[in-house]
């Protein structure tokens, strides 16, 4: 039950609970999510949502960095195997 799911903010509006709300698209399923704790989030951003609240904005640069490290590991691996076969 601690799962939080990434979704894309499509519309931001003022909710009746005085909370900043958004329509968030989770791979086709749209839900109303409170943005109370992510004041910096804008339309087009991805947020991690849990029980009706966005817990954080997903950091695009950090996500790219993680994938870049993975790719680099792969390239290093290739280089190493080339070195071995060169010997």
């Amino acid at each position, binding site marked *: *039950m601690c*799962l939080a799911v990434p979704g894309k903010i499509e519309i931001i509006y003022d909710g009746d*609970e005085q909370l900043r709300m958004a329509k968030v698209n989770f791979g086709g399923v749209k839900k109303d999510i409170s943005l109370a704790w992510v004041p910096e989030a804008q339309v087009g951003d*991805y947020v991690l949502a849990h029980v009706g609240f966005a*817990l954080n904005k997903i950091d695009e640069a950090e996500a790219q960095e993680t994938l870049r490290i*993975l790719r680099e590991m792969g390239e290093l691996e290739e280089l190493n195997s080339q070195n071995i076969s060169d010997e």
Partner: protein
Amino acid sequence: MKYIDEYRNSETAKFLAERIQKATSKSWNIMEVCGGQTHTILKYSIDELLPKEINLIHGPGCPVCVTPLEMIDKAIAIASRKDVIFASFGDMLRVPGSEIDLLTVKANGGDVRMVYSPLDAVKIAKQNPDKKVIFFAVGFETTAPANAMSVIEAKRLNLKNYSILCSHVLVPPAIEALLSSQNSLIQGFLAAGHVCTVMGYEEYIPLSEKYKVPIVVTGFEPIDILQGVYQCAKQLEEKKYEVKNQYSRAVRREGNLSAKKIIFEVFEVTDRKWRGIGNIPKSGYKVKAKYSMFDSEKIYDVGDIEVNESPVCIAGEILQGIKKPTECSAFGKECTPEHPLGAPMVSTEGACAAYFHYKKFDTAISEK
């Protein structure tokens, strides 16, 4: 789907598994704390992809599983009253109490409702002024700010008929309890990414230093978990013990400060009993005295409840990683998700249910 598909790529997964294999020279016991991660591991057979040197121990991080039986019985006692509407996240409804579960209360005419968010429970209270609305506030730090927010909302709306039955649990004290236990086999941890999204990971630094264990804050997709295992195993091999953040796309060191502020406005730290483990000091939240008018335990005196756990259930050993679900004599026989004998079989994030859904056939084969 962005931020999902790229973390489920099977080529990347195989590549990472190979890297882990190359990096490990001996056996290591690594615990994934969170039930959500256990689910991913079984669903995507990550345990089979990993080299045999890596033994993943499934931790107690499923709030549904660790909510004590007394608390479920209290919920059932309150939900059975004629003047209440009892609201809860869906997965709590099927958790067996000593005798029945909340769904049975509903079938017997009780007004038990499943909600997606605690704010939905506040709405129900607003629409039903002649009824008392109780929300079953369970969960880890991930869920605490939303549950706290419901109290703040109820106060703002001046609702006199809303309260929460609070059974919150906290991850770092549970990690400490596991590490300080004599039985502990755990050499490294994958910390629960979503808990850290809210709380950050500063609390884990003294734990990692004191017990000399690497702790890697890890996400929930297969690639996240493999990368978390890699970072943990690498540290173990190099005799390092640091806190690392694999899930940096969602977790900052200090967590989400606005969400934390809401938690500490409404809750304070208290001792809490964990089902299957027992009392853990300072391991939960309770409602602060200044919000006691929203605290169901203060409003409804349900008295002392005596409880009896099923004698065959070894949930305690499973939640501490001492045994695997398939080692339980009732697993898949008397105990199934349709007829759970213990909490880890109820929630899809419970270790027993995860094994039942994804490992059934293995047991059948090994029994032949």
